[in-house]
């Protein structure tokens, strides 16, 4: 992880301040108390803390985590909301767009009065309302190969909730370069896919999909349409995978992607290996 990681940013700041005070006072070095959840945290997160697989350590790991969500639309609405609700410490949201009425059937972070507002601001307001303990930061920009590295830097995980193949490949490249885990997702019509990626360890998006589709060959949601709950399912799966990667619980969909068809509930888990010579993750050629 890069030295400028924001992981535990505020805790490190507080520790540095406490250390400075100790030095000034000439106090004896005392062992650091282990961080613990407050009573308020225990109450808020009680239903996930009840899970045998979950623990205080997992919850604290979430609190220390910085996550970047690329997009503030149909996939990001469930993904960002679940991550904020679960107690991620810091959430960055990237989207250059403004809210439109046609977004509302499936983009539940936005409401009718938000029409015309920047999507990142509309989303951030709801997320902060949902969980005031989460630091939500907004980036009203279009992610491209010029800014992807800077946006990804300092995060412990990226969730790609964009609806553009260009963005997907740029996010994959930036995450692979920085070694930051990535949860990919996409939806159109009634179906979508989810893939978890640990760069340098497991297959990256480009290992699975080496080349972007030919222009015009895959319709966008604006062209083909999308059903709200389908996007809700995929975005929720992205949040689930993100929580698994951040806390080490469950089994993330790595070296594979889930292809989910919600028209008839035919779901397929497609195994993918790291591709030799992959330009995305730099896996050596055979």
């Amino acid at each position, binding site marked *: 992880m890069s030295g400028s990681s924001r992981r535990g940013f505020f805790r490190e700041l507080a520790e540095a301040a406490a250390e400075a005070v100790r030095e000034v006072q000439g106090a004896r070095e005392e062992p650091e108390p*282990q961080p613990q959840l407050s009573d308020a945290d*225990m*109450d808020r997160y*009680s*239903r996930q*803390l*009840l899970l045998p697989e979950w623990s*205080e350590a997992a919850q604290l790991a979430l609190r220390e985590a910085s996550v970047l969500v690329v997009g503030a639309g149909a996939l990001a609405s469930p993904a960002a909301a679940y991550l904020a609700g679960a107690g991620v410490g810091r959430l960055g949201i990237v989207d250059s767009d403004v809210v439109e009425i046609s977004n509302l059937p499936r983009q539940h972070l936005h409401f009718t009065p938000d029409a015309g507002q920047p999507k990142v601001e509309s989303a951030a307001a709801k997320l902060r309302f949902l969980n005031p303990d989460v630091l939500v930061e907004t980036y009203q920009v279009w992610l491209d190969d010029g800014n992807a590295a800077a946006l990804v830097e300092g995060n412990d995980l990226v969730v790609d909730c964009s609806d553009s193949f260009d963005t997907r490949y740029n996010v994959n490249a930036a995450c692979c370069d920085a070694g930051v885990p990535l949860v990919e997702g996409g939806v159109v019509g009634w179906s979508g896919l989810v893939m978890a990626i640990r760069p340098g360890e497991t297959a990256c998006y480009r290992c699975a999909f080496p080349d972007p589709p030919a222009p015009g060959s895959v319709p966008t949601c604006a062209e083909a349409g999308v059903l709200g709950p389908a996007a809700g399912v995929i975005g929720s799966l992205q949040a689930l995978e993100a929580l698994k990667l951040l806390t080490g619980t469950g089994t993330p969909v790595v070296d594979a992607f889930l292809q989910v068809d919600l028209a008839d509930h035919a779901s397929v888990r497609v195994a993918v290996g790291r591709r030799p010579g992959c330009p995305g993750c730099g896996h050596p050629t055979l």
Partner: protein
Amino acid sequence: MTRTLDITGLRCPMTWVRTKLELERMAPGEALDVQCPPGEALENVPRSAQEAGHEVRVEGTTVRIVRA
């Protein structure tokens, strides 16, 4: 030395949540005496602790748990 945890002021499910977190903070083999409020908790806490694999004994309103 046995740790004690007073959960008499809590309502389910916070009774087991608080107990579970205390157990996570302990080493295997350590014992915890949980002072329970009467009623639901005296059923839920021992059952949940047993399901989690810990050794449990109930004495009145105290649930003694040996962390697995």
